[in-house]
């Protein structure tokens, strides 16, 4: 049944949606950033599972192997992982500065302080 062969992707989409939910439903800024990272990690799983070839092996050329998995998604996701940690570091630095400026890292309190200015 070809629909069952897609259940991998559906589980990964469920993981993406949990990460997305953490981003939009939590008020704490640090938890939002953790949610973004969860979302990113599941997107990586989606891309890498698209590059897998059944019966293939890791794309390191060896004598005894005929088929290899597709190396192109691996390269793209390697870049994406490193860019992800760069944006996480910058985002967390911003959260630290926000906490020092407003005294809180909760979105509602920050909005309240901004509106009462």
């Amino acid at each position, binding site marked *: 049944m070809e629909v069952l062969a897609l259940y991998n992707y559906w589980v990964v989409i469920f993981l993406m949606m949990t990460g997305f939910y953490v981003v939009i439903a939590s008020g704490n800024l640090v938890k939002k950033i953790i949610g973004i990272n969860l979302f990113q990690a599941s997107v990586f799983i989606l891309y890498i599972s698209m590059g897998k070839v059944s019966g293939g092996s890791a794309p390191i050329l060896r004598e005894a192997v005929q088929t290899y998995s597709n190396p192109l998604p691996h390269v793209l996701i390697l870049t994406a992982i490193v860019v992800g940690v760069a944006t996480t570091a910058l985002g967390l630095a911003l959260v*630290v500065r926000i906490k020092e400026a407003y005294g809180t890292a909760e979105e509602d309190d920050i909005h309240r302080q901004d509106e009462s200015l």
Partner: protein
Amino acid sequence: MRDNPVLRVVTKITIPIILLFAMYVQFHGDYGPGGGFQAGVIFAAAFILYGLVFGTSAVRQVVSPGILRLLTALGLLLFAGVGILTMLLGSDYLDYNTLGQDPLHGQHLGIFLVELGVGITVAAVMITVFLAFAGRRD
């Protein structure tokens, strides 16, 4: 954490092993999994472990912020400089074929230099970010 003798001794034993492993991953990225990014992160992990156990001032004594700033820029300069070098040798930007006596040697040398640049910058940036966060409340 520096009062705990177990942590102190085990850290002092494992940090050289971590650094050696980082250099192995850096230079054997051509023959197995690895390369500049992984090696840079593992190299920084050794310094972060040192900072977690012995404090950020100890890390600052080992590698000063000035050196870190220099290394951050040096890796990127190395990468971009390899491209400029290939342009000066007559072909396109980042065309490694001209770097050696034949294309295969040129590619090997180009990939070696480029991954070295990547490893240096990634390690320096990770240590910098850790020192910035951990030194905030010293």
